[in-house]
Structure formats: structure tokens, C-alpha cells
């Protein structure tokens, strides 16, 4: 059987592979190559060794964006997961209207980041103006808080769905047995429910982690990095290095930043893999 199928690879694998090469492999290899070059147009490049990478770490906007992104990622990951889990707990109690609640909470996920960014810009600027505080684009702290609120609004519903699925898969007789043994609600939550949904926790944590870390659309639409790049996140910083700055050195530096960005994401993913594996062993 295997032999018979394997001959058919031009039909089953080739189309995907060709698109894969065009849309991913070739641009990736080329990108790595260009990160060691100085160029304005790709037809004329000069090899500069690791100069671009050295420049990346001397670029204060990149370091600032890195710090901003890191803090944002941690804050939003914690907030989103705590809130999503809490809502999931409520929605698995069997109160009336659970389906409607779930529908509403999930809805923002279907709206694109650019649209969400503009919606919240109008709303938050309105709130700030009424509080007589500086607008989003003038105050990096407001921009930060705004981004966190926006991300919570968008992502809580998504994570909640995953937590609900996790909680529903906790066997009911396990909880019944615990109740008979005289466990109270809190003990059931911390000793049974939370340990049982740990796989969901891992999944959601890393989903929010990578989503927040790679955030671009919302950042562009809500603050566009204002004021003076103070609310600029890594993805936007890379974009701006490529397309917002003129000068022969910037494209190479932008590509080097992209490689560094990629490596950070790889590290996060490896940690995730490690966590998932070790959890699976435990169970």
C-alpha cells in the first residue's frame, strides 16, 4: 500500500511543496542571506558580515520595542488567561443564557486587527478626552493600556472557548466523588479542576504569548507607535525599519532584526514544546 501511494507524490505533495517553496522556503533562505548584506535594491548587495546584527543591538528603537513588547506580552498573557478561565468557570456552571454569553464573548475574534484597532481608537480617545487626559497617540502609557484592553477584549473569548472545552472534559464522577469525600468548592477547583485542565492552560498561555509577541495590525491601527515610537512593538519596528527609513543600511538591518525576532519566537516555541511534553508525561 505504502509503495503504491508513494509513487503518486507529484499529485499529492508537489502542489503544496511548490507553493511552499514560493511562499516560504525561498523567501526564508533569501531573507537569511540578505541579513548579512547591505543593499537598497536586491540586485546589488554587498556582504557586510555580522555588521547588521551589531547595528540591531545598537538601535535604541529596537531595544525599546523589545522591552515594550516583552512587558506587554507578560501583562496581556496573564490578564487574558485569568479572565478567560474565570469566565469559563462561570459558563460551565450551567446558568441560563450560557450559549448567548459564549457567542458574544467570542465575537471580537472574527473582526480583523485593523478594524478592531480603529474601533478602540475612537472609543478610548473619547474616554480619554472626557477624562481630560492626553490622547492615545500622545501618551505611551495610555497606548500601552489601550493595547492591553484591546487584546483582552479580542482574545478572552477565544481562550474561554478552549478552557470551557477543557473543563467539560473533566469527568463528572470525579467531582461527585470529591464532594462525597467532603471537599468544598475551592478544593475542587484547585485540587481537581485546575490540575485537570493544565493542558488547556499550556495551550492558551502559549497562544496568547505568541499572539501578543507577534502583534502587528492592532498596534498599527491603535497607536501606530506614537508618540515618537514609544508604543512601537517589535513587528512594527521591523516593518518601519524596512519601509519607513531611507538609507542604504536600513534594509539589511531590518532583515537582521527579522531574523532576531524569528529566533526569539523559536525559543518561545521550544519552551512550549518542552512544557507540553513534560505535562503529557505527568498524566
Amino acid at each position, binding site marked *: 500500500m505504502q509503495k503504491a501511494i508513494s509513487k503518486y507524490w507529484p499529485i499529492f505533495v508537489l502542489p503544496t511543496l511548490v507553493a511552499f517553496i514560493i511562499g516560504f522556503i525561498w523567501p526564508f533562505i533569501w531573507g537569511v542571506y540578505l541579513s548579512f548584506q547591505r543593499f*537598497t*535594491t536586491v540586485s546589488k548587495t554587498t556582504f557586510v558580515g555580522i555588521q547588521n546584527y551589531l547595528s540591531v543591538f545598537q538601535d535604541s528603537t529596537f531595544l525599546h520595542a523589545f522591552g515594550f513588547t516583552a512587558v506587554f506580552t507578560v501583562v496581556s498573557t496573564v490578564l487574558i488567561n485569568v479572565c478567560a478561565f474565570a469566565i469559563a468557570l462561570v459558563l460551565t456552571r450551567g446558568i441560563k443564557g450560557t450559549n448567548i454569553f459564549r457567542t458574544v464573548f467570542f465575537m471580537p475574534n472574527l473582526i480583523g486587527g485593523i478594524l478592531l484597532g480603529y474601533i478602540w481608537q475612537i472609543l478610548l*480617545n473619547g474616554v*480619554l*478626552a472626557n*477624562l*481630560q*487626559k*492626553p*490622547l*492615545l*497617540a*500622545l*501618551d505611551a502609557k495610555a497606548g500601552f493600556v489601550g493595547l492591553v484592553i484591546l487584546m483582552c477584549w479580542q482574545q478572552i473569548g477565544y481562550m474561554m472557548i478552549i478552557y470551557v472545552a477543557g473543563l467539560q472534559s473533566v469527568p463528572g464522577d470525579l467531582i461527585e466523588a470529591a464532594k462525597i469525600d467532603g471537599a468544598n468548592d475551592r478544593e475542587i477547583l484547585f485540587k481537581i479542576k485546575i490540575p485537570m485542565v493544565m493542558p488547556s492552560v499550556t495551550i492558551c498561555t502559549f497562544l496568547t504569548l505568541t499572539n501578543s509577541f507577534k502583534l502587528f495590525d492592532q498596534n498599527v491601527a491603535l497607536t*501606530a507607535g*506614537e*508618540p*515618537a515610537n514609544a508604543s512601537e512593538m517589535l513587528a512594527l519596528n521591523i*516593518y*518601519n525599519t*524596512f*519601509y*519607513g527609513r*531611507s*538609507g542604504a543600511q536600513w534594509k539589511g538591518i531590518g532583515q537582521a532584526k527579522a531574523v532576531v525576532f524569528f529566533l526569539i519566537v523559536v525559543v518561545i516555541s521550544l519552551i512550549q514544546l518542552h512544557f507540553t511534553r513534560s505535562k503529557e508525561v505527568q498524566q
Partner: protein
Amino acid sequence: MKKMITRRNFLKAAGVSAAALGLAACGGSSSSTASSAASSTAASSTAAKADGKVYYLNFKPEQDQDWQDLAAEYTKETGVPVTVVTAASGQYETTLMSEMEKSEAPTLFQVNGPVGLANWKDYCYDLSGSQLYGELTSDSFALKDGDAVTSIAYVIETYGIIYNKELLTAAGYKQEDIKGFADLKKVADDIQARKAELGVDGAFTSAGMDGSSDWRFKTHLANLPIYYEYKADGIGSTDAIKGTYLDNYKQIWDLYITDSTCDPKLLASKTGNDAVAEFVGKKAVFYQNGTWAYNDVKDLGDDNLGMLPIYIGVDGEENQGLCTGSENFWCVNNTSSEADIQATLDFLYWCVTSEAGTSAMADKMGFVIPFKKAKDSTNPLITIANQYVADGKTSVDWCFSTMPSEEWKNGVGSALTAYAAGTGKWDDVVTAFVDGWAKEYKLANG
């Protein structure tokens, strides 16, 4: 590199012949005769012309539709396809950068002045031999790199303090009463003191210090101290600004934020849209802006609009006029094919000489264009601006095109905002202005 040089040489030769034709055409013949003459001289260039096309990456979103219409008209007349794309606001540089990477790059784009030009000069076709350059009324509207004419201004704009005549009269003043900063302050303070009686919220509109209108202060207002410093030192640009007139800058900024529709602390929670709404809603008498803003303020009625020079308290300012200049320069992409370059040059020439082109630019776009066949614009703010020139007032040049970078402007803007809110000191503005200039100049040119 070698390839580029040979192409340049070829184009130079072509340009010389085009200029000769342009001179011949000056005898009163229209552009169509010029092009037919060209076709008879060089058969190859006609062939090239036939399949040339124009791709214009336009900077001004408010004129997008007018350009689309004009382009369609040109295509109907000549059969040459003209595509106009307008970059979304605030994204011109990024759009230009990504479009220039593509195989069908813009043949026509624009820069905002010498600083913007520095980034793109390698892509600028030398316009010195073009018919377009021949139509220019003054050489000061062209940007040069050595002998090469890299870009040509296509619209002249003017700004100052737009005021509401009805409200100023109601307060008991007229334009003639304001001949300098002291007068302006006296009038503004008086209006501010009697704001309840006059039914306004303040003398000046609020600011809008976010991206929506901070350029009115970090760029346009900051132009005045730079202009006077250049004038005193007899220079046209500098690598290190001294800040001789920064006290005057403080004076006018203090006036703007004190005699305003809102508490200075609240300026940071207003947008440009808010400032316009206040002025159009007759809640403020003065609104610093330029001729381009006419569509926003026209609801007040043409007769009701006036413009004042921005006085900052410099000696001899009674002869100061409005601030006039350009930050919109056309560049033709020298990496486009020869046919496309020729098509682009023809299109531009048609825009600034033909009846359809000049009327569209004057009437629909409301532009004053620095070309010989220009029509008078119907924009009433421009009429006011012209009156100042006719009265012999000295126009203030737009020196802000020599500001070292966007970062510099942002630095000044943030410092101004912080100062208004009371969270920063004026010294921070001075630092951003003087030290920031030297730092950014070095970064941009070093």
C-alpha cells in the same frame, strides 16, 4: 552602475532635444504640436511613447479624486494610460518604499523638500532639459543636486492665522489693528477676557497635538524662529541651529495655549478635527492653518475669512507677510523605462500647460502652481495671500523643509505638549530644538 550612466547620458541627449522643441513650441503652439514635432524628428521615441505609461503616487489624499479625473481625461485625449494611486495619510514614505521595490514602480512620485530629496535623489531623473522645467516661473521652485534638477515644486501654499472676520469685528477690532505680536497679544487677551460676552470659548482654537494636527506647531510654527535665524545669519540651511529666536517661539506658543478654547492642560486631549469644529462652530476667532484648509472652513462664508501673519515679536515684523512655500515636489523615477519616463514628462507638461490641466489644478484642487500658464486659483484664502504680496509684505519662506528629520519634529512636538500640560519645562523644548537638531542632522547626514 555602468548601465545607469549610459542610460543617463542617453536621456540627457534626449532632454536637450526636448528642450529645443520646447523653445520652438513657445511660439504659441500647443503641446500637441510639440509632440507631433517630436514624432517626426525621432521615430524611435514615438514608438517608445506609444507604449509608455504613467504611474503617479500622489501624496495629497484630499485631491485624490481630482487627480483621478484629470488622469482619465488625459488618457481619453492621448490614449496614454495614467494610473494615480494616493497613499493613505501618513503612509506616503512606506508606500513609496514598497512600491519602488516592485517591478511596476511609480514613474512619478514626490518628496517634501531637500531633506526628503536626500533619501530619493538616486531615483530622480534630471529634469533640467525637460519642457516642464522650462515652464517653471522661477528657479527657486526647483530642487537641485549639483547641476541636475531633481525635483520641481508643483503647488505653492501659504499659511498664517486664519480668523473669523465677523467675530473679530464683534470684538471691536479689525485686521489693521494687528501689526505685530504686541497687538496680536492685546487683541487675543481682550477677546479671551470677554469670551462670555462674545459667545466664544477662546481666542485661539485648541491645538490637536496628536498626529492629526501637531505639524501646525512642531513644523509650521517652528518655521518662524528658524526663518528669522537663517535671515539674521544669512544662510539657507544649517547643521546646528542656535535657537536665537526661541524666546519668540515661546511667546507665541504661550499666547496660543493661554488664550485658547480650553485649559492648556487639556490640549493633549484634543484632535485636529476638534480644532476645526471649534473654528467652524464660531467658538474661536483665530485658527492657525493654511490655504489647503479652505474646504474645512468654507462653511463660515468666503467674506468672513481673513488671514493674519504669524507675528512672533521680531523687529520689523510689521512688514512680515504670510508664510509661503512648497513642500510638494515632483520627481520622475529614473529607473523607469525610457518610454515611461517620456510619457510621464509629457503628462506633467500637459498638466501645467493645457486648458484642462491648469483649470483642474486651479479650480478643483485649489492650487497655485508655479508655472507660466497657471490660472488664478479660485480659493479665497489664496486671494487673501496674494493681497499681502501685492501690498509689498515680505513673505516668510518655508524653512521647515530643512528640518533635519521627522524625529526632530516629533521631539519638539512632544516637548511642546509636555510644556503645555505643565509636565515639562520650556528648557526641554529648547533642548529638543537645539540639541535635537545637531543630533538628528548628524544621524541623517553622517
